[in-house]
């Protein structure tokens, strides 16, 4: 179906020269069969996205750069053509469907591609009926797109990518913005498309654990220009992007590598590996006291009366599903968010009564979109502005940033940094203010496993400086990695305040993958496992 012969792709600098000596893709040779379900993975920045885009002309058309070699789809070499020339053969779905919608209603959106290709109306009609039945959206056709759930939106996006009879489907992290239910809806549909309809599916994902058992083969974009493809067991020798289950297998030297929870569980019971207990860090004095905090938006109770205290030298996780009130609570604690009742007392007093600049002396926060805080045109300008605002020695923020993210060219535009690097930058800007309390709202969104590891290490060093960190997240594995204490919100109500072992342990609702595999009470994270 798809055949790559000596395919190479490199980015260009603005002066026309190639960005680096090693191209993003270097002489790639591989073939993909019709109906194959392929998982595309690799560490952040390795070029998963570029690889997918190269398959339908979006690279270089939308990314800049040069492409060379042969790209044979359905027997025809399409190398160097514009994306619209691929449209009748290859469907493409990206991360956030709502940003890619051109229509108002579901039907408008689905027919768009067929309209652009000038297909006759009768043909479009049959195709819409078939594809909407297949994707279980037949009864949504007249609905405005904005009223759909994330999972439904993503299925509409898939329908609209296949409406003109495309037999190849490229998906660039389609589930990363979805909650658990939405993601599993999408995966179920993809499996059916590949097995029943013979659609060739290439799926780029960084939350691999969910998908891994369902795919036919795994394609790895290594980041050094090479791309390899093979059966699942042979592809994960690089732990930079491996999910916990693979990482566990690699760490313990299991062969063949188990890829599903049940097979890993079998292996665990056979081998009974050793592990150590999690030793919590000792809390120091109270730094923040939340008392009877309540938030209503009109008649909606977003947060019911909540009380707790936070201590120094602690990382506290605030967990809960989408819409459970985590973000509302973060902003209410910070002081500038809506509050109906209650108080939040810090060493400087009630946070709601402080001016926004006074607040920053006790409490800093990184919002869901960290990049919202970046507004200058170079990294160095951002770093200098931060020093100036915090009235610290010039270079302080830069030093902190380097310790978090490594050495980075400071003439770069902040928006060109990766999601992980942007987070590090904002973290550095906030930490240099020396406040005792740090709030992070969904910091792991868009980060792969290696970036999460890096963030965990950063947070450990922050905690050891006797600070209190509150992380709102629904990322179970990350909480298992870093937290000392877990709060759980459900429908605006604080229902649990306990240790991570208790909340994430085997058999609980939020059980971590390691807890599920091992079924051991005191084991939740990979770091505990001993060789």
């Amino acid at each position: 179906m798809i055949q790559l012969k000596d395919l190479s792709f490199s980015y260009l600098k603005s002066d026309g020269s190639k960005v680096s000596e090693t191209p993003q893709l270097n002489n790639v040779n591989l073939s993909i069969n019709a109906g194959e379900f392929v998982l595309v993975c690799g560490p952040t920045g390795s070029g998963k996205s570029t690889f997918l885009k190269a398959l339908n002309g979006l690279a270089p058309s939308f990314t800049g750069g040069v492409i060379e070699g042969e790209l044979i789809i359905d027997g025809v070499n399409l190398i160097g053509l514009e994306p619209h020339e691929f449209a009748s053969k290859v469907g493409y779905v990206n991360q956030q469907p709502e940003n890619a919608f051109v229509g108002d209603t579901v039907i408008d959106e689905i027919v768009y591609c067929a309209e652009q290709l000038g297909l006759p109306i009768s043909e479009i009609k049959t195709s819409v009926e078939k594809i909407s039945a297949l994707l279980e959206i037949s009864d949504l056709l007249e609905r405005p797109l904005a009223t759909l759930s994330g999972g439904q939106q993503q299925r509409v996006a898939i329908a609209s990518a296949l409406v003109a009879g495309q037999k190849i489907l490229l998906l660039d992290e389609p589930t990363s913005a979805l909650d658990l239910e939405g993601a599993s809806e999408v995966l179920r549909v993809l499996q059916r498309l590949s097995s029943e309809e013979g659609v060739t599916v290439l799926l780029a994902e960084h939350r691999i654990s969910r998908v891994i058992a369902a795919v036919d083969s795994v394609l790895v974009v290594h980041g050094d220009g090479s791309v390899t493809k093979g059966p699942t067991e042979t592809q994960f020798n690089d732990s930079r992007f491996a999910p916990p289950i693979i990482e566990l297998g690699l760490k313990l030297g299991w062969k063949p590598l188990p890829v599903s929870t049940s097979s890993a569980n079998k292996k665990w019971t056979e081998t009974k590996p050793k592990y150590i207990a999690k030793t919590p860090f000792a809390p120091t004095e109270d730094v923040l006291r939340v008392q009877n905090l309540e938030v209503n938006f009109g008649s909606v109770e977003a947060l019911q009366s909540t009380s707790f205290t936070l201590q120094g030298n602690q990382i506290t996780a605030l967990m809960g599903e989408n819409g459970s009130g985590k973000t509302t609570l973060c902003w209410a604690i910070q002081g500038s968010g809506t509050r109906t009742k209650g108080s939040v007392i810090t060493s400087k007093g009630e946070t709601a009564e402080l001016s926004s600049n006074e607040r920053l002396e006790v409490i800093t926060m990184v919002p869901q979109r960290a990049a919202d805080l970046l507004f200058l045109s170079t990294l160095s300008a951002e770093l200098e502005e931060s020093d100036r605002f915090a009235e610290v020695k010039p270079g302080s923020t830069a030093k902190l940033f380097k310790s978090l993210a490594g050495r980075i060219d400071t003439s770069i535009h902040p928006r060109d940094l990766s999601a992980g690097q942007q987070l590090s930058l904002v973290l550095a800007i906030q930490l240099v203010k020396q406040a005792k309390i740090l709030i992070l709202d969904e910091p792991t969104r868009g980060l792969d496993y290696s970036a999460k590891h890096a963030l965990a290490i950063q947070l450990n060093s922050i905690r050891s400086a006797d600070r209190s960190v509150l992380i709102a997240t629904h990322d179970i594995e990350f909480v298992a990695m870093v937290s000392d204490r877990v709060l759980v919100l459900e429908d605006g109500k604080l229902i649990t305040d306990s240790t991570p072992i208790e909340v994430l342990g085997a058999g609980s609702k939020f059980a971590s993958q390691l807890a599920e595999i091992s079924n051991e009470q005191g084991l939740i994270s990979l770091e505990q496992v001993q060789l």
Partner: protein
Amino acid sequence: MKFIISRLSITLAGFGSLLMFAWPLLIAQSTTSETQLAQSVFIVLMPLILLLILVEFATGDISSKQLALLGVLVALNAVIRLLGAGTAGIETSFFLIILGAYVFGSGFGFILGSGSIFVSALLTGGVGPWLPFQMMGAALVGLGAGLIPQVSRAWLTKIYLVLYAVIASFAYGALMTLWNWPYLAGTGTQISYVAGDPLLSNLTRFLQYEIVTGGLLWDTGRAITTSLLILLTGTALIATLKRAATRAGVGRNT
């Protein structure tokens, strides 16, 4: 060939549109029914001429990337206009038209100017016979901004842009006042146009009308806000837009 004809058409149509604004100053001696006919004919012709120019620019092969950028700037402009509307003389949408046109060129500027006015009129209600005239006025502002020479020195760029902003603010104001002059003052008052009068005496009366209706005050307000916004945000916005232009692989085209 195609390009030359297109540019000729646009230039000619541009002059034609100015005629349709300035007709009360120019019209020869005529009866009331004759001037009324001219007035009604121009109401029909202005949207038509606008459409013809837009088609000329649109057939110059707009890529999906340019369209998306246009969409962004038009939306941003419409929203900014919504936020700034209502306060006397504070015109918040011009600076973005000027900056966008400066970075992406005249054709882009023309579509950006007319599109911004159109979308904000759709969102707020404001669609009426005056709309094609407002769209044309703003479109011409964008068209002109796309012709400002691009220089590398930031301070010189700012001087050019502010100078242009001031001229464009007053010119746009004059065009819009010219448009409403025959409607609001009618004929037969001391500050009305008189068909067939020498240009100078009609101009004098027009100036008096501008003064008594406070039009000049509004224009001054527009010139000040636009210049200030350009001075405050110009460098950063141009950097952002140029970065977008490079990423999208679209340069300035006139």
